[in-house]
């Protein structure tokens, strides 16, 4: 019972953050909305029993990606007084298409979804053993991908003139 209430509270928070990200006209509110969304998501992960994933989400997203986004905003955004700093081209057809895709999402996944909700029992020991055991190729590939992303970022932003 308590789990359902907390689930809906955190879900409402996540949806509120997402709505802010999609509709706000102020760039700092967008960053704040994204922060609320990501923290609510981390709370949901913790609620389902994935504590380590929740901590990783907070570290990587709130501590990394959100700060990176703020840096990008500070570097590139020029605020003109009296004008909204972010604009959208709201379109009813896009809204209908997105709602239809969301409903399709529910219809497709619903048959495999078990009726009972549960809490996972996951330990960091098991996950570490799995990541460095059976999933070692995946783990290594993600490491290579991160290195490639690092090189790409350096060459995209600082590769001129040499």
């Amino acid at each position, binding site marked *: 019972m308590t789990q359902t209430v907390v689930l809906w509270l955190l879900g409402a928070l996540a949806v509120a953050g*997402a709505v802010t990200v999609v509709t706000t006209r102020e760039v700092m509110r967008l960053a704040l909305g994204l922060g609320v969304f990501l923290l609510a998501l981390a709370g949901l992960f913790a609620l389902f029993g994935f504590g380590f994933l929740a901590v*990783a989400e907070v570290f*990587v997203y709130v501590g990394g990606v959100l700060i990176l*986004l703020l840096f990008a905003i500070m570097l590139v955004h020029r605020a003109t007084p009296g004008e909204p700093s972010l604009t*959208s081209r709201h379109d009813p057809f896009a809204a209908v298409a997105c709602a239809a895709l969301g409903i399709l*999402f529910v219809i497709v996944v619903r048959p495999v979804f*078990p009726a009972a909700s549960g809490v996972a029992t996951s*330990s960091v020991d098991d996950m570490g053993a799995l990541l460095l055991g059976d999933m070692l190729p995946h783990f290594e590939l*993600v490491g290579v991908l991160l290195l490639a992303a690092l090189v790409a970022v350096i060459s995209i932003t600082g590769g001129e003139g040499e």
Partner: protein
Amino acid sequence: MSVLILSATLFALGLYGVLTRRDFVGVLASIEVLIGAPLLLLVGLGAAFGGGAGIEAVGLLVIVLAAAEAAVGLALVVAVAGRTRTTRVEELTEVRG
């Protein structure tokens, strides 16, 4: 079941943001919402099936992939904004056929 509806709602919201935002930063933030929604579904399904370490490991890999995507995307934003002096998506028509 409620987590499925929540995830679908977030997915639709993120997709709407990607389609209608006119600003790079807004599009990138919407993509983050779009990636978060399936991750929530993965976690909810994993918990419903009583999954353990495997789900958590896959979730961790997804988080790392999304972080790499965000880093490259923001680097592109900074590079393009530095070159063209704009952050609006529709003003970039250089490679239009």
